[in-house]
């Protein structure tokens, strides 16, 4: 299972992942979310510059079966959007942690970032969370 949930990422209970690089956090959805959704057919993302609070729904992922909201793992400004997902939503299935990234967020208040990140789970905790909620 460890391959499914890289160690350098943090995870939410809604199955987003967050990767911190300096003052920017990249966001996507986890392998578990991808498996639950099945074939992704449309991804709707916010515009650059949009301000998000932690847990705000910032976009949606549509699969053949259903539509699901995606939530902001931290508060901040959307500084970059993966626009390739507009025409190639299948990247989310094929490569959820790399080509399937969705947005980059820069915290409005950098001092709040560690606190926001503290509320997320590391890979071990996330896998335990998934096990706990298996049924």
């Amino acid at each position: 299972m460890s391959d499914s949930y890289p160690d350098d990422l943090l995870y939410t209970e809604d199955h987003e992942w967050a990767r911190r690089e300096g003052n920017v956090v990249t966001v996507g959805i986890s392998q578990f979310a991808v498996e639950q959704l099945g074939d992704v057919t449309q991804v709707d993302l916010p515009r650059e510059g949009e301000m998000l609070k932690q847990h705000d729904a910032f976009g949606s992922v549509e699969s053949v079966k259903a539509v699901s909201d995606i939530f902001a793992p931290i508060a901040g400004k959307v500084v970059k959007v993966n626009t390739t997902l507009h025409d190639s939503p299948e990247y989310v299935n094929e490569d959820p942690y790399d080509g399937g990234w969705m947005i980059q967020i820069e915290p409005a208040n950098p001092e709040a970032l560690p606190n926001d990140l503290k509320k997320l789970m590391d890979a071990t905790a996330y896998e335990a969370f998934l096990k706990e909620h298996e049924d």
Partner: protein
Amino acid sequence: MASPSPTAARKTPLYSEHQHLGAKLIDFGGWMMPVSYPGGILEEHRATRTAVGVFDVCHMGEIHFRGPRAAEAVSRLVTSDAAGMPEGRALYTVACHETGGIVDDLIVYRIATDHFLIVVNAANIEKDYRHFLAHVGTWCQIDDESDTTALIAFQGPKAEAALTGLTKAAIATLRPFHFLPGQDVAGHPAWIARTGYTGEDGFEIGSPVEHAVALWQALLEAASAVGGKPAGLGARDTLRLEARLSLYGNDLSDSTTPLEAGLDWVVKFEAGNFVGKAALQRQREGGMTTMRKLAGFEMRERGIPRHGYPITDPRSGAVLGQVTSGGVGPSIGKNIGMGYVPAAHASAGTQLGIDCRGKLAMAEVVKGPFYRRKRA
């Protein structure tokens, strides 16, 4: 993403087969059914359009009518001319309430002069059986044999070729909406109907429930030899939606009539005195143009229509109705849907607005099936 509770739901005789195949199982109308197998819905959809998809439809109901008045009883229940059916014929039709609302959509099979089988939707078995008994219970013997009957759909352009190796039945000359009772498929007693719910050529194969697993395995093997695979409810839904086939509970209900649902062609007013005839006659005389109609539409802007989304008039902004079925059409590369709107907004070319979770996206009403298979 809540997981289903497996306790209450019923299982088909193929349940453990689905588990072995690694299927995602969900509670669908009280039945634990496979949504998809590893590989996913789109792959199963494609396999059915290009080769064969094998579907567990054991959850569907089988209700038999036997006796000298069986033809009369079935004719009283359905809007088509059941009494006029020859033996070996299958017929898609509906049963209505006195109000004209649809009790269920179903397929009637005439097995013999005095023996009919009606295949009904899984979620409606008890309701249908009660409805049948209430109206014609004293006319003939009516038996719900759903629990002892297995049903497997074998659908796709290579279905005939794949099935030929498993049976001596004359399937090459079996025409659509005809069936062969008393056959043998892979050593199992079975009836073979040239019917389905995918928009493809194909068969539905019924057998006694104790043969279900072995029959399923034989059919899967024959399918995989031609590039086919097992397919779940997810693919069944995208396939039937592309073929613009209605789903009871979404597009049809106790409060929609066959005239509204675009099923005028199964209503034979001259065929006799079926339940609901008077109400449907009144509705027809009231004018087909004043009622609401089930419209099929293709999205012209980005958006995936889904069950329950409001349909609006793009000029006035007024809400016209709701999407009853919608989603992606993998074989046509378009997003498509259906929904009830006033008849004035239901003709081909009409522009509709679909409220996709707060984002308005334009759609256009189209005529006929979204997908048509190429005929050989």
